[in-house]
């Protein structure tokens, strides 16, 4: 079992922009656990972890918000911790756990 994702990794090369909309990648499943969630990507078969319950809330809120800041607010992340969560999300983007949403056609 490989703990593949380090959530500290920077995502600069992936065009990370928290002013844009994101969502959980469709091939990825979250399993709630007492510490946060297990993350499994059915395509890469990689297992990783969301290490806090708040990060799980943020990731789930991404799809319902027009940008990452909205998701942070909806998940009630204290402003002082925003940067830490933004860094974690950038790492999740470069790992393919989350992905930009604008190219996805959405049906209401």
């Amino acid at each position, binding site marked *: 079992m490989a703990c593949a994702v380090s959530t500290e990794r920077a995502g600069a090369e992936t065009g990370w922009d928290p002013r844009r909309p994101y969502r959980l990648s469709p091939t990825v499943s979250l399993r709630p656990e*007492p510490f946060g969630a297990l993350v499994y990507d059915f395509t890469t078969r990689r297992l990783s972890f969301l290490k806090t319950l708040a990060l799980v809330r943020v990731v789930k809120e991404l799809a319902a918000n027009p940008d990452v800041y909205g998701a942070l607010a909806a998940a009630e992340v204290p402003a002082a911790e925003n940067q830490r969560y933004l860094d974690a999300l950038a790492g999740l983007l470069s790992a393919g756990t989350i992905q930009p949403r604008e190219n996805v056609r959405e049906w209401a």
Partner: protein
Amino acid sequence: MKLVEHFHTGLDAPICLTWELTYACNLACEHCLSSSGRRDPRELSTAECKAVIDELQRMQVFYVNIGGGEPTVRPDFWELLDYAIDHQVGVKFSTNGVRITPDRATQLAATDYVDIQISLDGATAEVNDAVRGPGSFDMAWRAMENLAEAGFTGFKISVVMTRHNVSQLDEFKAIADRFNAQLRITRLRPSGRGADVWDELHPTHEQQLRIYEWLLDNGEQVLTGDSFFHLNALGSTPLPGLNLCGAGRVVCLIDPIGDVYACPFAIHDEFLAGNVRDSGGFKSVWRSSELFARLRQPQTGGACSSCSAYDSCQGGCMAAKFFTGLPLDGPDPECVKGNAESALALVGAGGGQPPKPDKDHSRTGARRAPVSLGLPTVRVPDRPCDTSPLAGR
């Protein structure tokens, strides 16, 4: 609380679930951890297996490691494979290659969410067949050729490290590279028939050092099932992976008759948590068994707590201790500091006998001859009787 500490106290569902579908096997490997050979008449039916898969889906067990016995000799194996994949339970299955024909390889290559692990315990037929039986090297090789030709890349070649194959580590890596596969090496355990050959086959102290250094050099390209964490006491650099015994915490085993054990190497009543046929099913066993609750309690280092290496090796493998007759809260029989030697000397000499595996499905009751390189042991040929794994195909 650090993430790894949550693993100590257990998760809502296992991360790494092994499911042995049958005790039937066309081979009779000397070190078989499940003493496989004969099919158990109480084996879970197709419908019962599907009910387990439904439950795993509900628990979000994302994938299972299917083994045996030889799982592909179950007539419904391919049906169950498809059923699992259709229910968001990915499958990695271990096989000796007997059923991996060119047609099957092509079909598997076109299937998402399936991974294959070919067992190979020697980089040459001589070394492999001495442990796995005559013809088993060629069978595995044909399966790997069929997978490679079908375009199935990244399948696993799974090697149990023994005294006879540690010197072949580079050759194993070359074989994996040749087939565009990934090498996986794991630790030999004194479980099942492995107890009978442990003294002959487990790596020497020098070989343990070689394995550790080789793993450090080859990094994350080589999988280990995190099985070598007891070697972490050899140096200051920990091997990649989780440094803990996951038994009952993040790992467990469902055996062919539905019994749930704490880990695949602990098929013994002592580590039996329940059965998937019990009311409440697997979920109830995982979440409420007394055994698992006990394993999730903080463990003390026991005789190891005064050792400076305890933080890095965690006392090693529970199953290895149990089946060599050592106390579970003391050193691993392969303790790299040599701390198990005095306790091991007492086993059998007034210190009690090591427990025998109590679930033998071996096809022949006769005690085997010692593992002799180049002279594969002659076995009774399979007969087309109802206990033969190849009957009823």
